[in-house]
């Protein structure tokens, strides 16, 4: 394949999953119409969910899910060693995602609740970045299929992709939505990174912040707005903590 005379390499890609729902991987397979072009552009050498081919010569690794056990840690480290570019795919991989909700309880308590005295190998929920360096974070729960393909195109062209720095609100207006805050819902759109095409507000459903913070975040103002409209601080905080994507910048 050529672009303006430059021969483009067909990068080898591995797609891996850890603790998560595999919804993000599914997004890749979900674009049936373009799947053929995708397979033409990159060589998928490892994608357990849909392929029995397993090779370890991948250059770009897309990794889904959070890390909860030692064996997972070891496997992730191995992937990191092989991959030139490691992409954390989805909220679980980028921030721990909803898995973090269980961190509100202690681990032994948690295990006992579900498995009784049965032995289960599990540790605290960690995002990829806690263990290995991550090159690119593809946000969202699940990731958007368009954004995934956009990322792949950029990687093939050798361009470092620039994710939107603006919040969801911008795209929400572009889709001519009515604002869900005006309609009486909590929405994290004003502080959440755009790029999802505002699917949630589009469906009259406030944003939950699965894509994490936009480049400029004004928590105080967001809180004030919601409190003025009759929500409690607790409700907003619960929302902000749901995907754990704001951890680190929101206390």
């Amino acid at each position: 394949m050529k672009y303006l005379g430059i021969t483009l390499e067909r990068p080898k890609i591995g797609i891996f999953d850890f603790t998560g729902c595999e919804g993000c991987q599914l997004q890749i397979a979900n674009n049936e119409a373009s799947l053929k072009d995708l397979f033409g552009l990159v060589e998928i050498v490892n994608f357990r969910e849909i392929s029995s081919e397993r090779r370890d010569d991948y250059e770009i690794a897309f990794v889904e899910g959070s890390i909860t056990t030692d064996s997972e840690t070891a496997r992730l480290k191995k992937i990191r060693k092989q991959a030139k570019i490691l992409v954390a795919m989805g909220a679980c991989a980028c921030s721990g995602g909803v898995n973090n909700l269980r961190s509100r309880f202690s681990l032994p308590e948690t295990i006992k609740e579900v498995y009784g005295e049965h032995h289960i190998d599990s540790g605290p929920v960690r995002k990829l970045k806690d263990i290995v360096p991550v090159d690119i974070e593809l946000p969202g729960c699940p990731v958007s299929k368009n954004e995934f393909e956009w990322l792949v195109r950029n990687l093939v062209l050798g361009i470092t992709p620039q994710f939107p720095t603006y919040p969801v609100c911008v795209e929400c207006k572009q889709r001519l939505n009515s604002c869900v805050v005006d309609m009486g819902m909590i929405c994290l759109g004003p502080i959440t990174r755009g790029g999802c095409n505002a699917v949630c507000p589009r469906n009259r459903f406030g944003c939950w912040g699965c894509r994490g913070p936009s480049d400029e975040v004004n928590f105080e103002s967001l809180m004030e707005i919601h409190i003025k409209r009759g929500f409690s601080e607790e409700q907003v905080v619960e929302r902000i903590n749901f995907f754990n994507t704001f951890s680190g910048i929101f206390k």
Partner: protein
Amino acid sequence: MKIKIDRPINIEIKHMTRVEGHGDIKIRVENGKLAECVWKIVETPRFFEVMFKGLPIEMAPILASRICGICSISHALASARAIENAMQIEIPEAAQKARVLAKHAETLQSHTLHLFFLIAPDFLNALSVIHVIKSNQRLVELAAMIKGFANNASDLFAGRTTHPVVIKIGGLTQVPRKKQLRELAKDLNVTIPYLWEALDVFKKFELPDFTRETEFVSLKGGDCYPFIGGDLVSSDGVRKKEDEYLAMTNEYLVDFSTSKFTRLSRESFAVGALARFSNNYDLLHPKAKEVAGMLNIKPGDFNPFFHNLAQLVECFHVIYESKDMIAELIDSDTSEFSIPYKPEQCEGVGVVEAPRGILYHYYRLNKDGKIEEADCVIPTSQNHANIYYDLQSFVEKLIAQGKGEEEIGHLAQMLVRAYDPCISCSVH
């Protein structure tokens, strides 16, 4: 004179491919006898039951959908239904219809993914659909078009294909507009012939011959093929109400698996397309029955590989039924799609038929509308025991037929795949 050489067989498949989640198969044959044969779930648990604790109820369907990326709509529906049942509220009719349509879209989506992407390569001697594109392009095109339609329908009825956004307690955040429905109906009519074309391909696949009689558990429909709510039945004659689900599942732990196992009247039971088909054959759409006839599958067939045929039959069922339901929705008043509710101290169960079988969600709420306790019983975990026993008996049969190590490994994987296990979901 035949010489029998008993070579020891040692099969260990780590992280089996083309299934959702992580499972291992281990088979050991010594002196021509099956010494060990396990279906081992190694998925790391996420402890969803714990995650639910303390959350406000409106977060339940959102969180529930994250249990599984493939059947997220079912989880959200079961979750919302459980809480609605608990608070004893009845959602408006338009919302009920739209929910069933969302369910149908997911069923079609999930079944096509499984049939075309995960199963077909086995019969076409390919490692994956990526290779099928080269050898059998038309099949992949068909898959793309059918699944494309299913994705559009999911987008329309659930907000997006994975992790729905419109399903909320008390109904939906919105129902599609008439114009959108009309467009979808057009799309649907275009898609139906593709399904028939695909049928011709699948008809030719030769399924392994293997039968192990088992118990089929599913919902029982009143006047239509069941997807959301209803009585729980088993082919061994058990019949229970939605909230008696614990008596139906009887979960227990085994030490080689992070997923729980279940049993009812015998050592194991099966759920899923074949169970639904068997228990509700009469309620299928006539076109779907026609397809069943063409595929030569009848209620009471126990070959687990028929699971895939039943899925195909269901694809026809959901697409034809969707066609009728969309027409109905276009002609009915859809302005009411959500009702208000007040949280109270209560508990409830919601049952739906996920693509892979019957799915239960249970919640106990406190008076502030926070979840105190949650329980989810996933179809695949109900199937694990059945897969486990099937595998043993299947492998024994294969050994008796004198099959070699490689072939046994391959067929064993095919058997597991036939159940379309959704492992991360079963561990949750």
